[in-house]
């Protein structure tokens, strides 16, 4: 209601609307669909580019990730670089679809992406570093996500390496969803994106690019299109559902945590295609003290599951059932993480306690927070990759 006079004392009709609000909702909806199409074209371009490169180049590029620990940390670093697990997991789906990356190699990378995505809200929490109490609440709210995902990987990666049950579960689910038992599955979406990728390939060929250079160009363009289109989808979807998002967060505040908060976290993340958006919105709320760490926790877990929708979407534009399987590995990994760490009562408070302890220590020594981010998300992953590859 205060828009009446605005910040310069102007009547609202005199204040020019900001760009983000000037776009009609129906147009923004169409824009989102167009950008999603572009995203699918990007995934398909990546897949085609890898295939064009040839087996030798593929072998040189991806031989190092045969070590699951290296794969895990490449997933972490790759996601930290693009600041989006949606982008990194979609790229992994494209690589699996191209055949350059096997399912076994991709599973640890997917898990690493889950760790890497938590860096965004942790960085957001560092913005509150000047006020001790705010910083304590913000950092614990952010790192509960870090600790949950680290613990989930600590438990589920060895379980997967020893038993292969997560990829088995994903594979069976893919079979049920596609109604087929092997790589003969053809996604209907794949046919829709075939032509733009063909035009891109022809255009690059006319620019005298061939074999490896053509493949690399298609991969680079594919990566750029995937990352940029995901940023654009997230921005537009956030604007489209801002009111519902806000109302949902208010419901979480009013009713507390639990399964409802988890489902709300999942729905918000599915809508905006980014767990970072969901979890980062929680940080200023936590810093201001309007939402408790215990209520944030389930929203974060819901966001973990919700973010897997993007890889599933990417799998629709990719060839073969392996792409869908690896996307489902992402989903199952997060669901099983919740079942184990949230479902078992004595494990449930562990991420909260670790987050509170880290925040307590970081309030006394602020450099610890920066050290946590730099070491967990950059130095340790790079060191492990350097040593083990």
């Amino acid at each position, binding site marked *: 209601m205060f*828009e009446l006079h605005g910040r310069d004392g102007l009547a609202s009709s005199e204040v020019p609307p900001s760009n*983000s609000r000037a776009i009609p909702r129906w147009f923004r909806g169409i824009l989102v669909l167009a950008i999603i199409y572009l995203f699918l074209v990007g995934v398909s371009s990546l897949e085609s580019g890898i295939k064009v490169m040839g087996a030798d180049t593929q072998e040189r590029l991806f031989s190092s990730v045969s070590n699951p620990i290296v794969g895990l940390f490449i997933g972490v670093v790759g996601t930290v670089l693009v600041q989006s697990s949606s982008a990194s997991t979609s790229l992994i789906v494209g690589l699996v679809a191209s055949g350059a990356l096997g399912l076994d190699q991709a599973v640890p990378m997917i898990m690493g992406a889950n760790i890497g995505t938590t860096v965004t809200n942790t960085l957001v929490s560092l913005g509150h570093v000047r006020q001790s109490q705010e910083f304590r609440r913000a950092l614990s709210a952010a790192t509960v996500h870090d600790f949950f995902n680290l613990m989930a990987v600590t438990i589920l990666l060895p379980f997967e390496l020893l038993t292969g049950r997560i990829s088995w579960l994903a594979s069976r689910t893919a079979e049920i969803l596609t109604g087929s038992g092997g790589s003969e599955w053809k996604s209907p979406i794949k046919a829709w994106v075939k032509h733009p990728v063909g035009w891109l390939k022809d255009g690059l060929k006319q620019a005298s690019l061939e074999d490896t250079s053509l493949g690399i160009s298609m991969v680079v363009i594919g990566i750029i299109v995937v990352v940029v289109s995901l940023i654009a989808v997230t921005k537009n979807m956030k604007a489209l559902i801002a009111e519902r998002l806000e109302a949902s967060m208010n419901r979480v*505040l009013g009713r507390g945590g639990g399964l409802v908060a988890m489902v709300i976290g999942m729905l918000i993340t599915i809508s905006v295609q980014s767990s970072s958006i969901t979890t980062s919105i929680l940080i200023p*709320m936590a810093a201001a003290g309007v939402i408790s760490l215990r209520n944030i926790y389930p929203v974060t877990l819901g966001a973990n599951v919700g973010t897997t929708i993007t890889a599933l979407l990417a799998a629709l534009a990719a060839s073969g059932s392996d792409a869908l399987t690896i996307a489902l590995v992402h989903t199952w990994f997060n669901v099983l993480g919740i079942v184990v760490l949230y479902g078992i009562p004595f494990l449930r408070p562990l991420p909260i306690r670790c987050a509170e302890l880290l925040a307590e220590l970081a309030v006394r020594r602020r450099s610890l927070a920066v050290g946590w981010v730099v070491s967990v998300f950059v130095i340790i992953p790079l060191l492990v990759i350097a040593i083990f590859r």
Partner: protein
Amino acid sequence: MVLSFFKKGESPLDRISHETVLMLGDARHSFDLASTALLAGADASAVSSDIRATDDRINAAEQRLRSELVVHIAVNGGDDIGVVMGYTLLLKKIERIGDQAKNILDLAEDGISLSGAPDIEEFLTRRQTISQMYVDAADILVSLDVDSARQFLDRSMEMNRECEQKIHDYMRSDEPGHWAVPRAVLHRYWKRIVANLAGIVTSAIEPIQSLDYTDNGSTDIVDD
């Protein structure tokens, strides 16, 4: 509850605006009850629990709406920061008005009753005018009509001048203290209430940086 995510509802800021008007309605309810106890001889203990329950409701609403304003900024960024800060001030003013109704009740609970006093008609008229000002303030919050707001502010200044004059007169009255003091205190509370109502209306038409301040930089609410 989860399914409501898919339903289009009232926009969060509209909802906060709606709740603010309800809070103002609650504050008026408390004011009317407390005034009835003091001016019409109603049993103070009988209305006390209602006034205190209403005050608790106003306080709870203020806290809830503050949280929702934080959520609004967290979701939408800084675009609406002026609106949010304006609401924060406005909510505090409504909460204060609720407290001031309790102050009037305190007078009645102390055994003061102006019922049957020779000057009761003047009190009842002023009380009725202030009670109507709650309604007018709420209407202005909904309509955002600048002309109505200006008229309201003129009326509130006039009312405050009258209260100030009455306080001045009571302070210098030859009547005994038990006669003059409750009257002076009541006018003091009324003056505060009217000043806060004016502050609420000002919130709707003034930019955030000049709320509660006059053009020369001094505060325009001398009395809260």
